[in-house]
């Protein structure tokens, strides 16, 4: 089955059209027009060629396509992307059906062709200063990264990637998400409060990663490319503002993996791992002549420690937190749906750290009727990847223990007392050491680490 991808550069960004046996769709990427206009045209071509490939390979597998024909030159980073998919698909296969190798035969057999255009490219060295471009999702990592970057003097430029919200009837069920509505509202308040600009990149390519848009089986496929896509989408801002760094909020647990039943090591968030960040740096190095790199300031911290720092050091930022994917009807009017494993995880973190969930609009989730959302008590495919894979189980156990110690009670806290308290107490020291520890920084330059480490030590010592 053939699959064709056509691309073009538009006044505000890029356009990508794919045709697949009668199904076709046009997706647009829109940047702030002045930023896009100033972006060098050779880089626009690079962005087009690379994004076209990166954003469609998984879709081709979802459609079980045998071949994909692109109207672009061979993308400069095709091998990098294949390496990313290669690593990621073990998790996708295991998550989808317990067979880590499920997608490898199709991936290995997929035939891709490109136009004869030359992909010759010379690095375009930007004039950079000690400044960062930060992705702002309003999740705790991105908020903390912003706080830290500001405190470190990186004068961060903020950009938010808006993937299209869902509003589709999928096999008899209305599937909706409300992320953008809440993000836009938060951004307005954020800009006002901190007197700065949040730049939006409208990313229609986000439609391609979601199976429900195409009436395809539920699958993890589609999520391997997100962070790398964001890195590429950040490039026009890098050149426009002369930023030396692209900052992501990938915490320590992004390196977590598990070994599945057949013995394969699966990474639920490989594209956020330090290993892949090194590869992203390889790409950036090629594009920018070694001038720009990507890093995560929160990489040496576990998720719970990230929350601790955010709530303690930057409460003014913390009040903007939105970690829920807002992908069900409960999120239509609230930025926390209160009905997903992500909300559950953040809820217990807040309770553990003495931060009031109600202050950010997160309702009480301690009732036993919410048990299904907590990975400590149950596991299901409906949970977010990190929760369903079970890799966050101990962190949640520790968070419950801390919450109890802070006096939380009722519902699930009582259930916790009954089933896990003893284990929590027995392992408290181990957990303290594990989840509030400062790990070895992997991608952070020494001069930034020298400023960052004392901040971490100060807050985690509290």
């Amino acid at each position, binding site marked *: 089955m053939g699959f064709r991808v056509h691309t073009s550069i538009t006044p505000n960004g890029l356009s990508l059209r794919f045709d697949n046996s009668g199904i076709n769709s046009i997706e647009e990427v829109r940047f702030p027009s002045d930023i896009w206009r100033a972006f060098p045209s050779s880089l626009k071509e690079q962005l087009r060629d690379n994004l076209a490939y990166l954003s469609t390979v998984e879709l081709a597998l979802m459609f079980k396509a045998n071949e994909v024909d692109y109207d672009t030159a061979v993308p400069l980073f095709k091998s990098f992307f294949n*390496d990313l998919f*290669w690593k990621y698909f073990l998790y996708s296969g295991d998550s989808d059906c317990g067979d880590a190798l499920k997608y*490898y*035969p199709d991936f290995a057999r997929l035939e891709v062709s490109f136009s004869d255009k030359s992909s010759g490219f010379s690095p375009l060295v930007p004039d950079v200063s000690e400044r960062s471009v930060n992705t702002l999702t309003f999740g705790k990592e991105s908020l903390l990264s912003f706080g830290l970057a500001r405190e470190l003097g990186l004068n961060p430029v903020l950009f938010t990637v808006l993937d299209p919200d869902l509003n589709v009837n999928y096999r008899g069920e209305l599937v909706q998400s409300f992320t953008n509505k809440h993000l836009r509202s938060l951004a307005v308040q954020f800009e006002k409060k901190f007197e700065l600009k949040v730049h939006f990149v409208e990313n229609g390519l986000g439609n391609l990663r979601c199976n429900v848009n195409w009436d395809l089986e539920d699958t993890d496929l589609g999520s391997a490319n997100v962070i790398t896509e964001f890195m590429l989408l950040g490039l026009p801002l890098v050149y426009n503002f002369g930023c030396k760094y692209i900052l992501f909020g990938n915490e320590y647990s992004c390196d977590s993996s598990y070994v599945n039943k057949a013995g394969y090591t699966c990474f639920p968030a490989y594209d956020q791992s330090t290993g892949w960040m090194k590869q992203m740096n*390889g790409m950036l*190095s090629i594009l920018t002549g070694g001038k720009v790199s990507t890093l995560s300031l929160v990489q040496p911290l576990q998720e719970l420690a990230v929350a601790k720092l955010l709530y303690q050091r930057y409460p003014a930022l913390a009040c903007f937190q939105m970690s829920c994917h807002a992908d069900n009807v409960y999120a239509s009017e609230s930025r926390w749906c209160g009905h997903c494993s992500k909300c559950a995880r953040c809820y217990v973190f807040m309770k553990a750290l003495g931060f009031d969930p109600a202050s950010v609009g997160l309702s009480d989730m301690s009732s036993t009727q919410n048990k299904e959302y907590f990975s400590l008590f149950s596991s299901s495919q409906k949970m977010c990847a990190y929760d369903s894979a079970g890799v966050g189980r101990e962190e949640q156990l520790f968070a419950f223990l801390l919450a109890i110690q802070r006096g939380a009670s009722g519902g699930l806290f009582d259930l916790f007392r009954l089933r896990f308290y003893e284990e929590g107490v027995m392992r408290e020291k181990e957990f303290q050491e594990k989840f509030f520890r400062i790990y070895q920084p992997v991608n952070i330059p020494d001069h930034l680490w020298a400023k960052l480490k004392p901040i971490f030590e100060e807050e985690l010592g509290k």
Partner: protein
Amino acid sequence: MTIPRVDKKGCLAAGSPGSGVEAAAALDTSSLSAEVISLPEASTVENDSLLLEDPLVQELPIDNMVWPGISQVKSAFGPLKQNIVYVNSDIVEKGLVFTLKQGVFNHSFPLVMPEAIWSSFPDNLKKVVRDNIAHLASVELGVMFNLKKIKYDTPLPQFKSFFVELVLKCLAYSGDCASGKTMDYISRLCNLEFSFDSQTPPYTTVDFAPEDRSVNTITFGKESLVSYGLCKEIGLNPLLVTVIEPDMDIVYRDEHLRSFENKHKEDLRIQFEKEFEVQMHKIYNGLGDMNFYAHWGVDETELGWSSQLTQYMFFLLPFCYSFKSKYMVFGNENSCDRYYYSKEGFKCYPVYDQSAEWIGHMNAMLHTMMNGRVKATSLVQSIQEIAVAKVLYQRYPELAKYQMSCHADSDSAEFNRWCNTCSKCARIYTFMKALGFDPASVGLKDMFSLEFKKHFSLFSQTKDMRGFDGSGLGRDEQLFAFYLAAQRGATGDLIDLFKKDFYEEAAAREEELRTDFFKVHKPLNVPPVLWKKIKPIFEEELRK
């Protein structure tokens, strides 16, 4: 038994130095004559002494470094355990040394370059070459031995992802050759972990004003000879580099496996240099010892060879840099792009690393490292193998007489550069008879008697044949060659057999075969400025 130091198809003789990478360029000897290694005449010395006496090796500051001309691996290392392997790499005065360690196993594989060329190569680029070759050369071992992890003392190589893609493409064919093991190999690659030193990899690019000249590797195969001839004719002043890989000399499962390529090529080199007043630069590639299954004492496998041509690209960088050469010329003809589908449904390229697609990937790597100043190309990419032979025999007969396409990996090649007992010799013999070139003039004996039937892929395809012959992809080309030979009046048992069984088919398909095999195909990766000079040459010769 097939020895895998094969070109699998023809133009790249694995085990045969410099194969595939075809270079050319008249030599500027003014500054480098001292660096060209001079060896005693091959015909007057034994293989062992030929190589052990070389001063380059004596001076290498690595205690256990051995001369790679004839492999010093006399008995198998034994298979690696499914555990961690450590790869340590060193930059030394005359090249690089890679050491593999696992438990008590500790073996160094040297890469020896001409000193003046290597020493003038920027340090950062040396590191890039080191880091990338360390990974590239060893990644397939991970699949071969189902290793858990390979740990490098070098930083993340800039082109790791490229190598994973290359290996993945090649696994389809290797797996098929191992009776449907592609998924097994894929699974091993999935589970293989790599760990690198944490230091930031050097960002490196160079800026120099390249000149219109080429660096060609010379293997004495027909593609390398034609490439040299073409480069000279179109004014690329080709610089010749030969990559010498160790000849094998090992007892493997009670059989003494030997090859004699270097001995014969040394003879050819001396004569060639004298006749054309050029010098060939030598690279001694001890990494070749790493690729050969017999050295590990394991079952025969195709695994191990997918990285060779890409390694050569890295080897040639110092030459391009030193001589400001704009082109790196490889001898990958049109049939390198041929593939078939395995029973498992995978697209299998017997020589993917020589395909036009992979040359495109090599160009992306080169572009990055050399700031777009150097481009890899194959001037013969647009013609089929028999057309390459036709151009060589007709236009460059003075070069054709140096042809050595056999891998010389059986005892019958000890004193003759053609073993006369392999499918490669059989294929070339038919080409020569088809094109009116006398095989005896290059020492290739009559192979049209019935006893040689098993070496011709037209009559049978066996696992013992070279990859390209064994896969059946060269069947039609051989059919056409037999047809042309018969028309020229060739005689012999096999011509009789051909007439009986295949003549009718060939006659019926003559036009199709002629079009296919003597056609000038669309050039991929050949810069337009070169193509406009080469195309008329091909057209002129192929219409004769």
